[in-house]
């Protein structure tokens, strides 16, 4: 294997001062929710770890994951691409095309065998011999399997790669299939969302490069650091939920006061994501803050769980501290009306207490 440069060497060579480097490490620690005691550890890792090649493949998708990725504010995506990883293949951004592009895959797979990260955006369709998605004249699923073979780890970007997303919504005409059902023998980190939050994407990559390990995952394969709590749990409108103050219709008095969107269909109580904490686009807002309920886009099969505007119902089961893992055990593979939510129970109780009909 070729001698790879460390982040630190690369950053210094690119004119970044030691002082800026240390500041960068502290921002990285903060972005990952780590205390200041981790700063030296990050700095040490950056000084000694090589720049890892990343091969970013695209199947059936809409490119929203790439678009989200380039929105990252910390770190800036230009710093990720120039200084942190070596983005050797990404058909959305790469200069070369055709056989020159395909040659890169072979070269990197050979040169960095077992030492590159495969990032997948989108998913392979399996119907029609895979020819609903053709790369270089051949089915995308072939390319995916070929590149996965010698990857160190796989990142499944977004809900397409993680779960199937919109093209896999019923009746899934192309048999669009998530990555983990096609590649069975590699560690896969799912980073769901349609798309995932930019800083969550770069946070996952930064963590992997900094600590040289994949982040702790829940039973579904999602990094716990970003996907272990429901949007509802940390929503700034939660006090209105608890107080029984709801938006009854769009643009009503409650909507203008920022009341809870539960009654107009918010899926925050059943959706595991960092939207209400990390928020979107450098922390500017998130769907609920902007007045629309969460549509649950980071959940498996969210397209087939009913209208965005139908309120969550049929509540039973676990208590308030239920973890993502426990929900996974209870509800894995279950879609539709049965999803149990503590929050809706309290809503019903609250409504009953008030004597309202929910």
């Amino acid at each position, binding site marked *: 294997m070729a001698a*790879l440069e460390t982040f630190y060497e690369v950053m210094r*060579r*690119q*004119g970044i001062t030691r002082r800026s480097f240390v500041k960068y490490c502290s921002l990285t620690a903060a972005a990952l929710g780590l205390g200041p005691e981790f700063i030296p550890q990050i700095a040490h890792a950056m000084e000694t770890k090589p720049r890892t090649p990343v091969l970013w493949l*695209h199947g*059936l*998708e*809409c*490119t*929203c994951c790439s*678009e*989200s990725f*380039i*929105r990252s504010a910390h770190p800036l995506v*230009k710093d990720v691409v*120039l200084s942190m990883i070596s983005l*050797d293949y990404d*058909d*959305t*951004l*790469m*200069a*070369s*095309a*055709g056989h020159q592009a395909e040659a*890169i895959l072979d070269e990197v797979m050979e040169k960095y065998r077992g030492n590159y990260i495969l990032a997948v955006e989108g998913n392979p369709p399996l119907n029609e*011999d*895979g*020819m609903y*998605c*053709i*790369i270089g*004249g*051949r089915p995308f699923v072939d390319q995916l399997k070929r590149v996965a073979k010698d990857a160190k780890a796989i990142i499944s970007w977004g809900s397409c790669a993680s779960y199937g997303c*919109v093209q896999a*919504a*019923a*009746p899934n*005409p*192309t048999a669009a299939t998530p990555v983990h059902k096609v590649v069975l023998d590699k560690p896969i980190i799912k980073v769901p969302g349609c*798309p995932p939050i930019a800083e969550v994407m770069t946070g996952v990559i930064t963590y992997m490069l900094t600590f040289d390990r994949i982040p702790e995952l829940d039973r579904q394969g999602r990094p716990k650091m970003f996907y272990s709590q429901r949007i509802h749990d940390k929503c*700034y409108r939660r006090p209105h939920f608890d107080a029984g103050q709801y938006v009854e219709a769009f643009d009503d008095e409650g909507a*203008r*006061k*920022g009341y809870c969107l539960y009654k107009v269909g918010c899926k925050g109580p059943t959706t595991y994501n960092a939207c209400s904490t990390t928020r979107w*686009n450098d922390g*500017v*807002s998130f*769907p609920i803050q*902007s*007045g*629309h309920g969460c*549509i649950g886009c980071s959940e498996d099969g969210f397209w087939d*769980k*009913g209208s965005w*505007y*139908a309120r969550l*119902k049929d509540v039973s089961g676990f208590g308030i501290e239920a973890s993502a893992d426990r929900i996974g055990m209870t509800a894995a593979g279950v879609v*539709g*009306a049965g999803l149990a939510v503590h929050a809706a129970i309290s809503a019903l109780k609250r409504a009953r207490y008030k004597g309202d009909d929910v």
Partner: protein
Amino acid sequence: MTVQTPNGFTLDNSGRRIVVDPLTRIEGHMRCEVNVDADNVIRNAVSTGTMWRGLEVILKGRDPRDAWAFVERICGVCTGCHALASVRAVEDALDIRIPYNAFLIRQIMAKVLAWHDHVVHFYHLHALDWVNPVNALKADPRATSALQQSISPNHPLSSPGYFRDVQNRLKKFVESGQLGIFKNGYWDSAAYLLPPEADLMAVTHYLEALDFQKEIVKIHTIFGGKNPHPNYLVGGVPCAINMEGDMAAGAPLNMERLNFVKQKIDEAFEFSKNVYVPDVIAIGSFYKNWLYGGGLSATNVLDYGDYPTSQDDKSSDRLPGGVILDGKWEEILPVDPRNPEEVQEFVTHSWYTYGGGREDIGLHPWDGVTDSHFELGAGTKGTRTNIEEIDENAKYSWVKSPRWRGNACEVGPLSRYILAYAKNVPYVKAQVDDALDQFNHLAGTSLTARQALPTTIGRTLARALEAHYCAQMMVDDYDALIANIRNGDLATANVAKWDPATWPKEAKGVGLVAAPRGGLGHWIKIRDGRIENYQCVVPSTWNSGPRDAKGNIGAFEASLLGTPMVNPEQPVEILRTLHSFDPCMACATHVMSPDGAELARVTIR
């Protein structure tokens, strides 16, 4: 063999065949094959859409109020324009008039998207067809600084030291030997014509644009909660306004939020004025002798028109619609999206079938049928799952062929600008004339609009000018929004027909949008409160579609003909011209049969 197409092009597939697959730096997946003659001039071009997702059948039976989110996921690059077309189609079907504030907020969101999409397209998807980052290493930063200050005196980032810092970073990056996204580029090709100082300026702006593009989308984040894929709402917008009442601080829109929007609009205005437009003119002037790529734009262009100043008056469109045929700029024909004889789609050369021997007819979107039918022609080289050369005499693309009264048309910013210029829209006329003056001054040429616009460079220029026009229109829309709120109107959603019980048993509507890549239309049929049929006719379908039953070729194929290649092994010229359309293949190829299986309805009530 030489063929004369009915729409005036000559195809000759006898020469050497060149295959480019994957065609990178686009949204989605496509393949292009060309034949070059003994002088390496392109004489035949074959555009193949290589992906298909099937969203319309997925929509069948769903709640029309949910459709925007499904179709928004057609594309995450032009994020939001399909959602906008969808809510417009549903509101058209159900006769819902949205509040004026919602109209203005959607107007701003549409232009934010267009502006962002155009900037990211030029710098991050297209620039490397003109700009050689390796050559930038040879630049004298003082020369770059002088160039920058001469073409754009008001851009603050222009000192020699600034460009030297960028050059140093680039130098170290290249010296590392890990070239990342620049790996295997065509940097030794004689197709690149910029002097090193211009290459350094463009690479610097590649990075500046990368930094700024994440800022402008924050307007979507405020109005729609996130970007990509902000939230929309049938009947208006979800972001309620509270300027001074109780709890305004927690409301979606208040003074602080609107100030944020205003600041980003102003920043975008400065960027397109001082960086994007001057860059395109300057870079284009170095390619003054490379006036290829016009194709269909020289004759047939189409757009539906958009960006009205008056909510209910189509004639107030700031970019007016219409069709020009046969290069007759003086005769602009009206487009009626409801007329079954006008917009139609053909599948003769697409991997779909209309069944019952109807392969060669055109269908209006309200009556659209699309059954997938993947089969390769007898002339294909390779196998069904390993295509070496495709046979364009048979079906050869996942994209359909839209036509207007049987005519292939180009759509996109260039088409809109040709229409607006031909109609003498004052802002556009002044913009184009001013840009051409600057171009001619820099290049020492005397090109007219008719000569300069229908080219690859003209297509790229029109996009830049449209981006800046969008910034100007955003400024105006924001002022109108503030004036309306000042008048006491806070309404953002009309929910009078929110309940499906208020809807007619059957309804149909159409939603039109001036999407970044061209005129976009969604056609919906609603029955018993559910979607009965949903069809989208998408800009990249118009442009990238295969030949039709009569042999008319589409915009992509037409644009490549007659272009000389410096080295057919290095497809720089093919990439340059196809990228000038900003292909969006997930958009182009999402259509799916309405004959698909009935949905299992999983609805929580």
